[in-house]
Structures are given as C-alpha cells and as structure tokens.
C-alpha cells in the first residue's frame, strides 16, 4: 500500500465534491458501492484519511478525466500567495506596488524551507531598497542563509538565491553554475515567471562585464523566447532591451527599433521612469529617453 499525506489528498476530494454538486449528483449516487456516507463526510472533514483507490473510483463515477481534476487542483484550489507579484514589483523597483505584498509575505512560512527562506531574503531586499535596513545587514543575512541553498542550483529557489547573492555582493564566483542552471535546467517549463525575473536580474549583471559576452548573448536569446511565450509585457519589456544590446554589439542597426519598443513598454508598465537599464541604453545611444520617443512619435503624426 502506498502511503500519502492526507492533507494533500483532501484537495482532490474537494475537487470531486465541487464537480459532484455542479453535475447535480447526490452524495449517495457518487459513493454507491464505493464507500459509506458516514466515511465520505469524515473524509471531507479530514477526520479520516481517504484511500487513493476510493478517490479514483469516485473520479470514474463522475465521468470526468483525471486531467480535469488535476487542473481544478492546480488553478482553483491553489490560493495565490502573491510571491511572484512581490518579486516582480521588487525587481522593477516598484516599491509602492510591492508594499501590499511585502506586508502579506513578511512572515511567510507556508511553503518549503527553500521557498520560505527565499521569500524572506526578498523581504529583506525590499527592506534594504526601502532604506529600512543597511546593505551590511542585508549581506549578513544572505550569508547566514547561504547554507540552506544547494550550490548545484538544481532547484529554481537555489538558483534564485545565488543570483540575488551574486548581484548584492557583485561577485561572479558562482557564475559558471548559475549560467549552466539558467540555460540547461528548463525551469521556464514549470516556473516561467520566476525564471523571467531571475534571468533578467542576471542579464543586467552580465551586461556590465565584457568577459561574459557569449553567456549574455545565449541567455538573452533564451529570455527573449521565453518572455514572448508567456505574453507578459513586463518581461517582454526587459527582453527587448537585452535583445537590442546583443544586436548593437553585433553591429545590427535595427537595435534602435528594440530600444523604442522597450521605452514604450516602460510608459505602459511602470509608475515612473526607470534607471534599471540606463547603463545598457547609454552604451548604445547618447540621446535622452524622452527625445528618442518624441522623435519617433513625430513620425506617427506626419
């Protein structure tokens, strides 16, 4: 007999019960020859562990596919934590937008040790960016929690931590492992939004260093594809500027088109002008951001 944690299984039973109600099926009709009504209610109240075989029989009785149940579990029963929103706004220095999520996640302990710790490091990053703690305090906390994260970076949490660590310490000691993990671990298949955030963080870090041009190009290319896959304008905005910079370095004159797109996105996505990509942009053009757009828009109204 395979043992499972009942608290994990209750979400499947809740999905079954919801779909039962939607189909107008009575409990009796659902459980006939499968289990007793008393047991069913005890399973629902989590007084009794539900065997997987009984769950499976009820799924068959409902006439739904297992993927329907799994998608229900995936989307309906998973309460959004706000972690991705918090990480995104923090990454883009949108502290006002990040604040409600900061308050919600300040004492976050609902997930695995790795994710809980990563969230707590981002909470500290918010506090540092908001001038609530000093850089030294933030660095000390990062150092103190480093042992929790595996340097092989085989989880996206560990990879995210070491990217944050690298940026804060401005130290490329973990570069080889980070770039290998980003390029080869396919985290974007299951954790695309977190992947987008950390990929952009690392691209900005690499953009300053001529020694890593090839890695920058490879990661930029992957990021550009992944960002467009998910249609999220924030990451397309970021991908566009790295795409421009790679073109610029390869003497492709169409890089200005990408810069303009990036700047238009900035006005659609941010609450204020951003300095985040200014180093990259100033390496490509000496024109001010507003002037680039003004000249471009003059073409529209000709």
């Amino acid at each position, binding site marked *: 007999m*395979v043992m*499972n944690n009942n608290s*994990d*299984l209750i979400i499947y039973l809740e999905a079954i019960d*919801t*779909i039962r109600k*939607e189909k107008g099926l009575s409990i009796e009709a659902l459980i006939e020859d499968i289990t007793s009504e008393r047991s069913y209610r005890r399973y629902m109240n989590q007084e009794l562990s539900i065997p*997987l*075989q009984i*769950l*499976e029989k009820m*799924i068959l009785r409902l006439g739904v*596919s*297992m*993927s*329907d149940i*799994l*998608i*229900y*579990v*995936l*989307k*309906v029963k*998973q309460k959004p934590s706000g972690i991705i929103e918090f990480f995104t706004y923090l990454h883009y220095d*949108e502290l*006002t*937008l990040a604040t409600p999520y900061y308050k919600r996640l300040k004492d976050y302990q609902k997930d695995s040790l790795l994710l809980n710790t990563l969230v707590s490091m981002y909470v500290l990053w918010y506090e540092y960016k908001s001038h609530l703690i000093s850089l030294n305090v933030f660095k000390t906390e990062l150092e103190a929690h480093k042992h929790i994260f595996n340097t092989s970076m085989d989880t996206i949490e560990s990879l995210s931590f070491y990217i944050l660590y690298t940026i804060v310490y401005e130290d490329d000691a973990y570069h080889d492992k980070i770039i290998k993990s980003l390029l080869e671990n396919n985290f974007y*298949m*299951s*954790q695309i939004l977190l992947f987008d955030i950390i990929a952009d963080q690392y691209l900005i870090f690499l953009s300053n260093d001529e020694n890593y041009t090839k890695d920058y190009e490879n990661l930029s290319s992957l990021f550009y594809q992944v960002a467009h896959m998910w*249609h*999220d*304008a*924030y990451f*397309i905005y970021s991908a566009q500027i790295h795409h421009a910079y790679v073109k610029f370095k390869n003497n492709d004159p169409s890089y200005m*088109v990408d810069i*303009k*797109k990036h700047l*238009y*996105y900035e*006005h*659609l*996505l*941010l*609450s*204020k*002008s951003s300095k985040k990509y200014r180093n990259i942009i100033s390496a490509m053009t000496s024109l001010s951001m*507003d002037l680039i*757009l*003004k000249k*471009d*828009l003059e*073409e*529209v*109204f*000709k």
Partner: protein
Amino acid sequence: MIGQSQFTEVIESLRNQKKLTYAQFLDGVVSERSYRRYVNEGKPFSFEILVSLVERLNMKMRDFVIVSMNYISMKYQKEIYLAHYLDHQMYDEAEPYLDETSPPYFTHVGSKILPALKKRYAYHQKKINLYTYLHHLKSELSLDQLKKQHILDRNTLKLLLLLLEDGSFEDQVTVIPILYDVILGQTQLITHQYDIDLNALIQTLTRVIFSNEELKIAFQNIIESLFKVALHNTRKFHLEEGFQSFFKDALLVLDVKDTLFKECFMYYIFAKRIQHPNYTFTSDSYIKTFLSLNEAKEIFNASHFSSLYFMREGYGHEQ
C-alpha cells in the same frame, strides 16, 4: 485535453531526465514489469500510482501538470500553432497546418477549441454558412445548464466567446450574463492559464459591448463597472495583448474632452507603435473616427512624457 495515457509518457520522460533507476523510482509503488508494460503500451496509471510517482519525482502535482501540458504542447505543437493562427484569423499561416492536423487531438486546445475554430475558418472561407457554424457552437454548449452552473472550463469559455462575437443579438444577450458572472467571480473559471483566459474574456466582452450600440443600451448598467474591471485587469495581469485591446476599447467609452481619453489615446499610440514600428496616424481608420490629425497633434504636443506612466498611482481614479 491531455489524455491520462500521456501522463504515463511524461512520467517516464521525467524519470529519464532525473536519471532515476527503476529500483529507486518504483520501490513500493509498482513492479518494474508492470511499469514497463504501462509505458510500452501507453496505458494510463491508476490515480494511486500517478500520485505516488509524482511524489517520487519530488514534484508537486501542480508543477507536474504544468510540465505535462508543456510537454504535450511541444510534442503536438502543430495543434497549438493551428489554433493560434485560426484564432487570430491568420489564415495564410494556418493553411499549411490544416492538412497536417486532424483528429484525434491531444493538446489542451484539441477537444473543443480547435474544431470550433476550424468551423469558423470554414465559414469565413464560405465553405459553410453562418447557421452551420453557429449550430456547431451551440451543439457543443449546454446554454441552459451553463446559466445555472458556477464552474466554467476554458474550452467552454472559448466557445462562448466565439458565440458572443459571431452570434445573433439574442445569442449575445444569452451569453453576456454567463460571461459577466465569471468576471464578477460568481462563476469559477477552471483553466491552467487563468490570467490569459480571463484577459481574453474581458477583452472580448468589452470590445463586443462597447462597439455595439444595441448592446450598450441593453447592458448599460454594467458598462461603467466593465470599464473599471478592464482597467484593473490590464494593470494587474500586464499581458502584452491586454494593452492594445484596452486602450482601443477605452476610446469607445471615454469622452474625447476627458483627460483620461487623451492619455488613453497616447497609450494607444504607444501600443500601436510597439506592434507596428511604422504605424502612422493617417493609416489608422479606427482612430480617425475619434480625432482629426490636427486634434491628434494637439494632444501629442501637449503631452508630458514625465507623467505618462500608465501604472502610476491614482491613474484612472477619475472614473
């Protein structure tokens, strides 16, 4: 929709990817002989075995489902491409895939969405009439049942949106309350791409109602709240297509003299310029129904880029 047997294929692929031996992976769950038979014959695992093997992979079920969907979407990507091109009415691009893609379908677009889009394509190509196309949509939907239900899956949602766009006024009047209940949260949307599907729903509903005078009158009580929802949704989900659609629709309900109209007009131009780097005002017949070139230039000349940030605090609170 993903078939259960495809979960078997994904499990085996992940076992290989994680370099787990049969002994490590199967101990106490299922015998190696049975496991091989499941894999070789493409048989679905029982729920019990599936849940246990996902645990052995050290994955959460939600991650496994997402990986599975991506896996199947990659393997049968022609279905995804075809659905995308048909959905966006890019028929030249769709045509090469039409002959190569036939039932049975395997991906999440396969069971209802792709056949419905193919019917719409056939209607647009004048191979079937409107009645046949709409009859197909309605035969796939149980509208009476849907009015009472509080759950909607993404396949049904897409069919309802097609009926909303292409159906008669009576069809639209039937469909709109069902869709609006999803926006209000009174009906749950079951989908693995919640933000994208909700966004498509809000965009389509907004566009159809805002651009139809009869519907505007019939549903005037929801226009204001629908605009607020669309604004909130665009900011919250920040999907690429959301901006293009929202600013276009916003111009239909805002007063030309309103400051918000002027801002939305500029954002509309930004979104257009992102989409088409050579876009010009004079080539856009839609925008010319609101403003002349001179009026547009006036708005542009009076605009201050330093305050033109859509996400800034307070934006849209005038509404």
